[in-house]
Every structure is written in C-alpha cells, then in structure tokens.
C-alpha cells in the first residue's frame, strides 16, 4: 500500500481498566500530533459489536490502516479482522493497564511511547503479496525408500491424487518388513502374531496408478528447491533426473554391526551365537537350527539389549526388539514343542497394547523370562554356549547353558553413514545436526515431529526413530501429509510450518550486498545459496520467514513486507527519551528508557500470562515483539542508544541441545551476535551489560517481574546513557 493511499485511524479502547489508568486526552494528542494518525476515536469497549460497527463504517468510508490500541493481538482476533486493511494491534491492556501502577506518572509516558512506536510501525508496514514463481511447480511427492514407511507414504499421497515416485535401492520392495516370518500383533486382540502387513502394501503400491516405482535405484543428487526439485536417480548405473515437489525420506535402517559385540556377547566366537535378524531368516525358511551342526535346538537364549542402552555401543533403545524377541521365542516353541526359550531382559518394553502380547507369551510354559544383566556370552564345552548374568530374578550371578543364543541387536539409521538425500545445499548434502539424535533423521520438536530443517523434506520410519513396522507405516502417512502441505503452500507463495500462514517473503536490496555471506551460513534452513560470483541468493521456497537473515545482515538489506530492520528501527527511534532538561525541580533522576525485544512465540505470550495474573512490571521498559530472536539486528542497538535509550533486554527461547527456539538456531545466533557486541559497547563507554539476553519459557510468566527488575536495577547501577540528549 503506497504512502499516498494510506488513510489512518487509531482506536483507543477504554475498557478492561485502560480508561482508569490513562489520560485519554493526552493519548489522543500523541496519536494525532506525534504519530500523525489522522482519525482518533475512543470507545468504552472496542471489541463490542457497536464499536466494531463504528470501525467498519470508517473502513467503508476509506480508512485502510487501523491501529487498535486495546488488548493483545492474541485475543479478540475474530473481532478485529478487517479484510484488505493493515491492522496493527497494540496491547495497552496487558502492557499498561494490567501491569502498571496507575498512580505512577511514568505509566502515562509508557502508553504514549507505545502509541508512538505503533504509529511508526503502521506507516511502514505493508500487506503481503505472495511470491509468484515463474515456473509451474511440481506436486510430485518423491518417496525415498520402499519399506513399510515408504510404501505407506507413497500409497496415501497417491490416494490423495498426488503423483508419487517411489525409489528403492534394493531389487525388491518391502525393506526389513518383508524379511519377517511373522509380525508382532498390531490389531485387536493384540495377542497373536500376524502376517507382515508389508506384503499387502507392496501389492497395493504396485496396483496404484499414481505411483511410479524405481527399484535398484539410489538418489545421486537432490538439487533445486521445494516445488522445483531436480532429483538425479541412478538405476544400475544409468542416470535420470526427475522433477518433484517434496520428499519423504523413508530410507530405513540397518542392524548394528554385531562384530562389535565380539567381546561381551561372543559374536563370531561360535556360529551358534546369532543376531535376531539371522533368527528371523531361519524362521522364514522354516528351519530353526543350530548353524554349527544343523540340529534343532532344545534351549535357545534370547539376550535383549545386546549392544544397546549402552554408552559403549548404541545409547538408545530400539523400541521393538522386546516384542520381536518374544515373538521369536514363540517361533522356537512352535518349531519344537520340547524346546525352552529363555528371554534374558533388562526391562521388557511392550508398551500400550503390546502388553497384551507379553501376557500371552507368558502363558507358554516353555518360555522362561528373567530380568538379567548379561555379562558374557561364550562357547561352552560340548558345542553349547554359556550365558553369564547378574542381577537376575533367579539369583545374583548365574550362568545358563543354551544350544543357541540370539542377540537382539539394535537399529542404526541409514543416515548414519551417508547423506542419502545428497542435497545440493551449500550447508551440506545431508540433514543438519543429526548428532543430537545419534544419527537418526529426527526432529528436536515433539510439536513438529517431521521437521528436518530442510524445507519440504520429511523423514519417516526407521530412519527417523527406531520403531516397529506398525509405527513406521503410520509415520509414513504423517510425513506424506506434510509433503503435500508443503507443495500446496509453496504453490500459493505461503510459508510452511511454523509460519504456515505467512505470505511475506524476504526481498533483499541486492545493490547493498557485500557478499559477506553471514545470511547464507546462519540460515537454519539453508535457504540461501551463492552463485558463481559468490553472491548470495534465496531459494525462496526453502524459506521459513523467520528473519534470521534479516538479523544477520550487517548491511540491513533484507526486508519482509510487514517486518524489516527499518520498521523495527523506526519503532525504536520513535520513543520520547526524557533528558535532564525535562526534570522538574523536585525530581532527582531522569527516568530510564529501556527497550524489551521479545520473541513473539514464547516470551510475548508469557508477558500476556503475567499480565492476566496482574503481575507488575517496571514502567521503564517498552516491549516490542520479534518474529524470532534470530531476526535481531545489531543496528537496533545503535538505533536505540543513539536515541538515548539506556538499556535493551532481549527475551527469547532457550538455546542449546534442548533448544526451544521454533527456528532451531534463532536465539542461539542472537546470543552469539551479542557476544560480538560487548567489546564494542565497553569501548564506547556504554557497558556491555546494557544489552542482555535472557532465556525464558512460555510458562515462566512468574519469573518476568524479577527478570525485568533485575535488569532495570543493573542499568540504574551503570547509570543513564551518556549519549542521551546529544
């Protein structure tokens, strides 16, 4: 909306106690004379149908920039919805009325500063115009991996009328699910083994017209951007490039290398010490025998957690091996009713309905179960094997003899050894930071489980987490949905999770770019690449609109339609900063002016919660929401301090391994940038402590008053900004 077209109106609400705390005549003066908002109206209850009708009338008569100075943007959103208008919400209720002392004259000053800030914002903010790609986007879903998860993802995407390309590296579809003799129960009554559901899925996939299957095929390269992915496939040596819109990575797992278990578990010392996969193969062929002499075993020991839940091997648990071993114990018993199956476990993990299967197995008198910490498996005289264990239910240290020992080894994701996707991303060919998940392509968010930090690429099944087949099939469906959403959103220029409604996009002023590439390196999603000359450019379809690039850029060239360095800078510079000249005789100190830049995802709702609980904040601090702390640009510090502001408090999500930041790296990067700043601040005589970042969770509203008070006290201790009034 061009400047000439804008017609402003400011609506001051007197409800919810705002009217009792503020002088509205003075507020109106600030709104008209300083913020220059042409039309200013008040109402006792701005969200009431009557007041809303008044606003709609004004809009019908030409107002198109509406500043609602009432409650938080997180409430009354259906009410304050004026299509086609720029609407700014200033939460005077939470930020002033509910959290300030009505007797303090600073309260009025606070509200007036907010009006100045939002008045500045509404002048510069624009309505988003979605990005339009020149080419037509592909809605093909590429599924990498034809095991349980991949088959499921492919089927459900295809049934929702999306073309699917399914790529499988083996000659046959089915993955490990197809190698099973029987599967653990997944349907009511949950007590009986079943045929592996993968076989039915393979038939369905083969019958589905929308799915194109490639076997003996791997992914050589994934280039381009979501919606326009150019994926090079290699089938038996010959290459082909296909177009896809989004990807489901369902590349599965492989068993942990049992050779590493030679020491403790004796793998390799005898052919009769096998892995659960080897047992499954024998069962599938209908011949469970000792590999050494081909005899049918009379006693089989199952050693659970072999090389798992162990800091020296796999630190995690592979989820399904308990149930799977119980199943194999039944195989042994069904093949030879005289045989004993001994299950040696640390914990039996059969959660949920699988518990009913565990109970069922316990009714078989030939299955013996004991808790045991196995210390050694080794060959014993007479061609037998001995298993030593401690801390068992049968006694402290025991030694059992068996004809065959089955080691339940763990699942290792395909992404451990190789990137699989082979992404053409400057930031690397694989998914980032997988050490957090011991190599699994998992997400650090339980609220967005399919997140991989590579837009439109969603991991599912055993490559994402150790899981059984039933779970993997469900997982595939979820990942397929996210892939579909990605292509649909990108097609209309909308971002994907977590800013799934956002139609703005980063629009950099390239003439000022110095190719420092901080944006390229810091983008948590690898959305920025560099051309042959080394100049960065966006792959817009990868962008999540967090603004980390905006914060990183020392030249401040990145802008979004409704969010830019200039918009925030203008808000900061609009404050009225009192100096000594403004002191009245009976006052001693110049009141401080402090800015609070807060993450809108967690810190801002915490402010609202504190306000609802009527906690009190210092009147010195003016809050301003940011899309993410990653968008914090250091120039705002100079903007603020050159204006005479005394301190800046940044409130954002937790960073570190257990990061809360919805954009993975935002708050961490903000902290990193601040560390670069402290030296400069000290040299300028300003003091590093004037700018501090505090990590706060959305539920920690009760900590806010102290955090703020402590910061204000520190700034008071340092003293007012020496550049004030210059």
């Amino acid at each position, binding site marked *: 909306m061009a400047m000439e077209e804008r017609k402003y109106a400011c609506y001051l609400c007197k409800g919810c106690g705002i009217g009792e705390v503020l002088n509205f005549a003075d507020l109106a003066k600030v709104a008209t004379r300083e913020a220059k908002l042409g039309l200013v109206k008040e109402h006792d209850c701005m969200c009431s149908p009557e007041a809303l009708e008044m606003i709609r009338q004004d809009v019908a008569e030409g107002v198109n920039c509406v500043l609602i100075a009432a409650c938080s943007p997180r409430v009354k959103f259906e009410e304050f919805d004026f299509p086609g208008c720029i609407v700014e919400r200033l939460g005077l209720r939470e930020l002033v009325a509910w959290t300030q002392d009505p007797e303090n004259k600073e309260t009025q000053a606070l509200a007036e500063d907010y009006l100045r800030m939002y008045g500045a914002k509404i002048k510069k903010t624009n309505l988003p115009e979605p990005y339009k790609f020149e080419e037509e986007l592909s809605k093909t879903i590429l599924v990498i991996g034809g095991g349980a998860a991949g088959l499921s993802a492919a089927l459900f995407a295809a049934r929702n009328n999306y073309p699917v390309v399914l790529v499988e590296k083996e000659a046959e579809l089915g993955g490990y699910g197809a190698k099973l003799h029987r599967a653990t129960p997944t349907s009511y009554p949950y007590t009986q083994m079943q045929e592996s559901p993968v076989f039915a899925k393979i038939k369905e996939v083969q019958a589905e017209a929308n799915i194109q299957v490639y076997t003996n095929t791997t992914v050589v390269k994934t280039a381009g951007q979501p919606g326009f992915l150019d994926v090079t496939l290699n089938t038996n040596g010959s290459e082909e490039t296909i177009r896809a819109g989004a990807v489901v990575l369902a590349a599965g797992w492989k068993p942990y290398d049992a050779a590493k278990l030679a020491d403790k578990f004796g793998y390799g010392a005898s052919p009769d010490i096998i892995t659960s996969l080897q047992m499954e193969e024998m069962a599938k062929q209908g011949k469970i025998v000792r590999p050494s002499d081909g005899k049918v075993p009379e006693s089989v020991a199952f050693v659970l957690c072999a090389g798992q839940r162990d800091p020296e091997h796999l630190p995690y648990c592979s989820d399904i091996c308990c149930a799977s071993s119980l199943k194999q114990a039944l195989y042994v018993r069904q093949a030879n009713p005289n045989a004993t199956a001994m299950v040696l476990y640390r914990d039996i993990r059969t959660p949920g309905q699988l518990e009913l299967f565990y109970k069922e197995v316990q009714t078989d008198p030939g299955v013996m179960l004991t808790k045991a910490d196995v210390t050694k498996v080794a060959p014993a005289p007479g061609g037998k094997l001995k298993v030593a264990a401690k801390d068992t239910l049968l006694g402290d240290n025991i030694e059992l003899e068996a004809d065959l020992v089955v080691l339940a080894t763990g699942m290792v994701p395909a992404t451990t050894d190789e990137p699989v996707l082979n992404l053409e991303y400057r930031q690397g060919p694989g998914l980032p930071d997988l050490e957090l998940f011991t190599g699994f392509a998992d997400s650090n968010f339980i609220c967005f489980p399919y997140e991989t930090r590579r837009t439109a690429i969603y991991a599912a099944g055993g490559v994402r987490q150790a899981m059984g087949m039933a779970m993997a099939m469900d997982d595939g469906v979820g990942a397929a*949905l996210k892939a579909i*959403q990605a292509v649909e959103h990108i097609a209309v220029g909308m971002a994907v999770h977590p800013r799934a*409604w956002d139609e703005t996009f980063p629009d950099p002023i390239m003439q000022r770019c110095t190719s420092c590439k901080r944006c390229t390196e810091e983008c948590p999603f690898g959305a920025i690449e560099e051309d042959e000359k080394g100049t960065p450019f966006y792959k817009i379809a990868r962008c999540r609109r967090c603004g980390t690039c905006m914060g990183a850029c020392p030249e401040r060239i990145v802008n979004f339609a409704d969010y830019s360095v200039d918009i925030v800078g203008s808000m900061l510079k609009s404050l009225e900063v009192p100096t000594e000249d403004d002191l009245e005789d009976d006052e001693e100190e110049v009141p401080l002016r402090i800015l609070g830049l807060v993450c809108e995802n967690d810190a801002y709702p915490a402010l609202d919660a504190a306000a609802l609980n009527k906690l009190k904040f210092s009147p010195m601090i003016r809050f301003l929401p940011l899309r993410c702390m990653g968008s914090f640009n250091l120039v705002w510090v100079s903007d603020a301090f050159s204006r005479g502001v005394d301190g800046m408090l940044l409130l954002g999500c937790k960073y570190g391994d257990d990061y809360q930041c919805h954009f993975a790296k935002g708050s961490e990067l903000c902290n990193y940038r601040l560390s670069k700043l402290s030296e400069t601040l000290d040299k300028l005589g300003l003091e590093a402590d004037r700018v501090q970042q505090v990590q706060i969770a959305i539920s920690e509203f009760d900590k806010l008053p102290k955090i703020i008070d402590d910061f204000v006290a520190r700034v008071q201790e340092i003293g007012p900004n020496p550049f004030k009034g210059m």
Partner: protein
Amino acid sequence: MSADNNTILVVGGGMSGLTAAIEAAEAGAQVIIAEKEPYLGGRVAQLHRYFPKLCPPTCGLEIQFRRIRENPRITFHTMAEVTQVTGSAGEFEVTIQVKPRCVNDRCVACNACAEACPAWRVNDFNFGLDKTKAAYLPFDMAFPQKYVIDMSSCTGDCGQKCLEACKYEAIDLNMQPQTHTYQVGSIVLAGGWELYDTSKVETLGKGQVNNVITNMQMERLAASNGPTGGKILRPSDSQPPKKVAFVQCAGSRDENHLPYCSYICCMASLKQVTYLREQDPEAEATVFYIDLRTPGRYEQFMWKVRDDEKVRLIRGKVAKIEQAPGTDNVVVTVEDTVHGRRLKETFDMVVLAAGMVPSTKYHPFALPLSYTPEGFIIPELLPDGVYAVASMKSPLDVMKSNEDATGAALKSLISLSRR
C-alpha cells in the same frame, strides 16, 4: 480436492484433535472441531512439561492457537458434544450440541464475575486439588479466553451478582443449549483419555491415605499456573516433601484393573523426579517399577535421572501403601524382586503413576463402533471415512500422538476426495 464436501469433523480439541484439524486445514480442508471442555488443549494443557526436552506444553499449544487464529478454514466449538451421526463416508450429517457457557463473546476476561460470585466448585482442571468460583476461567492461558459459569455449582440465589458485576454485558444466565448440524465428508475421533481411578486399587491407599496423589496431580502441583503456584507441596500440611516415592503401574498391567500398559507413565514419573529435584536439591526420589519403559531416545533421558545421586530406581511391585501411624507420612511395602526381599519404607509423599483410560470407555461416540473390552476403538473395524487418533486406540505419548494425528489428517482428506 472435491468441491462437494470439503469438510472434516474432528471430535476432540486436545493436542491430537488440534493437530489433525490444523494439518488438514493447512492442506486445504474446511474443519470443524467439537471439544467438550470450555477450552482447547485437553490433557496437554494440564501438564507442566513434557519430555524429552522438558518443554512447557503451552508452547506447543500456542503454535496451534496461532495457526487457528490465522486460518479461516477452522471453526471450533467448545462445551460441545457430538450427539448424532448419520450417513456415510463423503456425506455424513453430524449434530453438535453446545452446552450453555452463560458467557457470551463480549467477555474480556476481566475476572469481575468471579470476584462477585459467592459459589465454589471443585477445580477439575487441577484434578480436585483446589476450588474455583462457579464463574471461572479454566486456566490462565485458556483458549478461547472466555469465562464460564458452571450452572451446576451456581446456587441460583445470590441475586445474580455476576450479571451485576459484569460491565461488558457478557453474562447471559438464560443462555440456551445450541444445536449445530453440519454435512461433513469424514470424521476424526480424537476424544483423548481420562486418568484411571486409582482409588479402585485398594492396596494403593488413594483416597484413604493422606499424601498419596496421582501423577496428574503432581503435574498440577509443579505447574506455575497450578493450585500452589508451582511449588510441590504435600496436600496434608502444604509442606515441601523431602522424600517422595513414585509407584509405577498403579492399576496398570493388572488383570483386575487395566491390563494394558499406558506407555508414558515411566517417562512421566522420571520427568516428575526432575521437577522435585529442581525444586529442592536435597529432596530424595525413589521410583518403584516393574519394567522401566523408556524406549528409543528416551533412554538417554532416563540415564540423566538414574545418575542423580538422590534418585533410586528400584525394581519391585508395591504390595501395600498405608499411613504411618500418628503421622501424615506414608509407608510403602515393596517386593524387591531382584534382591529377593521385602522392603518397607516411609515417605513424605507418594505419587501413583496412574494409567490412561480412553474417553470412549464411559462415553462411547454417537455412532456404532467396535471397542475392545477396555474401551479402545478397534481401528480395523472403523467405518469408512471415520478415523481414530492416538489414545483412542492405544495409550501414546504427545510426540506419537502428533504423528498419528498428522497421518489421520491425510486419511480424512482422502475420504473427502474419493468418489
């Protein structure tokens, strides 16, 4: 996507229902959510933190609410129940009954009605640990941010003080139930769960012995917006407990109660151990378990708790819980199966890891479905176009519930587009 009927009904507005609804809406469907409580967020809103990162649940919920605010394709009804379903996949007709909140959309959450109201009610959001007025806000971050008048707790004889106190004309004591009828293409059942009533397990002392609480009550004690402002205090004397026992499988994995395992109670208790230890570095925690179920990557979370010096993890079935005579302390008798002995120990407070019962156990849905004897929906026997999510089928943690719900969104979309 077919133009005919592009609407999905999601029954239940907890984390699973919200996820299914929002994911489907963001993939193009129109969605209606019917939630029986006055707020969205279900059980997750009642948690203090969830594992493995120990994040606050309101963070995950806030993202959902923001997505709802920004998405015109989502309509939600609170205090709503689905009373009738007719038709079949692609063309169901559903009837939703909305109970009167007695507070209309003009409510600004100023609390005046609650201050004026003289009547009290048991606070179910805090699992009975405290009370609210009959006019109340379900909790501070409640979405929608609207008060409710619990007419069953209203004495009816105070002279309508709430009406008098409200300056926004938001109280309507004569509000009538409303009926909405919708044509929808598919239905997602996300009715969630209730906590098993552990007072039915006589040996565990719930309801008889002081200072025996449930895992959900422990969550509320630890939550900043809970009955004690986030301080874990034992109910009898509001003192911070120094020695706490966590009893796993309380009424679970038990033929006489819940035969199945509720999946997350081991992790939940370990998480609650961290709450206690964070509050008081001198407090001691003991977890009595049968099998320690911390699957997958949760294993590493367990190690952190196990390695805390003041935490003991003891394999043993709790045989009895009783009051220590003359005190408010609790004596726990345990079979330590590994060392083959009986333990008897006194604690300040005991937390029972109670299991999850699907809401359908006592409130079946308004369409004929097949249930297991424990009340779970049998997914293979669901009619076309109807999908069940998460704890409707089997107890699950939040992460897997979200995954399942995302998958259900796709399945329900397919039902819309098939003809």
